[in-house]
């Protein structure tokens, strides 16, 4: 008796989930039960097809689909693209600003250095002239004729 197939196995056989078991061929009781399950399945299939959708429902659903398709999608990849562009523009702007500041810094530094050099040169030149002036013999004033 315990060799009979369980109802779960018989159902699986009827549903095509399992291939025919050897015990099915050997046991008339199991064969009969499997046949009954198959007949029950077929009867359920026939009785189960009971309701047909009204034509109005089909039309309504087709209309809904068309309406939904024509609506703009709230979620689209467009918002991400400006963010990416903004990011790349941001990088470019940052690099440009950096270059500008570096250039300004260099120009300013060179200008300061040039003016410092010019002041030094002028000072050296003044000192040189002063030294030259100090070492030169003083001219005596020309004799004046007395009347």
């Amino acid at each position, binding site marked *: 008796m315990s060799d009979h197939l369980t109802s779960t196995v018989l159902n699986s056989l009827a549903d095509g989930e399992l291939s025919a078991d050897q015990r099915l061929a050997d046991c008339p009781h199991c064969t009969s039960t499997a046949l009954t399950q198959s007949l029950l399945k077929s009867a359920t299939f*026939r009785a189960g*097809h009971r309701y*047909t959708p009204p034509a109005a429902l089909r039309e309504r659903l087709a209309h809904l689909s068309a309406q939904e398709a024509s609506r703009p999608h709230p979620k689209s990849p467009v918002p991400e693209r400006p963010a990416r562009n903004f990011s790349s523009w941001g990088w470019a702007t940052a690099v440009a600003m950096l270059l500008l500041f570096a250039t300004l810094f260099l120009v300013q530094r060179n200008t300061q250095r040039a003016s410092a050099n010019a002041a030094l040169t002028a000072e050296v030149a003044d000192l040189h002239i002063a030294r030259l002036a100090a070492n030169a013999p003083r001219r005596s004033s020309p004799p004046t004729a007395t009347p």
Partner: protein
Amino acid sequence: MALLHWERAAPTSSPQTPTFEDLALPLLPSLYNVAAWLARNPADAEDLVQETFLKSLRGFDTFEPNTNFKAWIFRILRNTYLTSRSGLAAKRTVALEDELEAHDDSGPRLYPEAAIDHRTPELNLMQLNDRAAMQTAMDELPSPLLEVLLLCDVEEMKYKEIASVLEIPIGTVMSRIARARTTLRRNLQLHATPGRDSSEKGTRL
């Protein structure tokens, strides 16, 4: 030659991904049939199907192409049904059934009463051919058993697909199917009588 032409032409033509309408509209009769069975009311079934369509249409972006669309949309239908008025009512009605089932969910069990049929094959055949009696017997099934029977026997889904729709393990699918058929046969024994009037209200095939 035609096949060769088709094979050559196929790569050049852009592979059109099926639209929602292409996939969903052919399933409308199945969806409506299952919805009407579950809601037990054609008017509620229309609402249920319409809501299912809207939900699935709006969530179509989340559907992975080349996967089982039928199982996907039936899962939406079932979830919509569970949150609907009729679904909530059915849930309250079968609370005891669920309690019982919780003990069966560990895996397939033996159903000795299903394996033993004391009636004659002739009587079996007569009862099974009585479509109205079958429908009455199905009507009396609790929703968890009816839905699994509809998916398995009427929609001819595989156990794996049913498990996906109902979001339960395959073992539970198997045990529910066994229970559903046992209960169906018991209901049939109670209601099916030869020569019964098979006229019923509603839109029937």
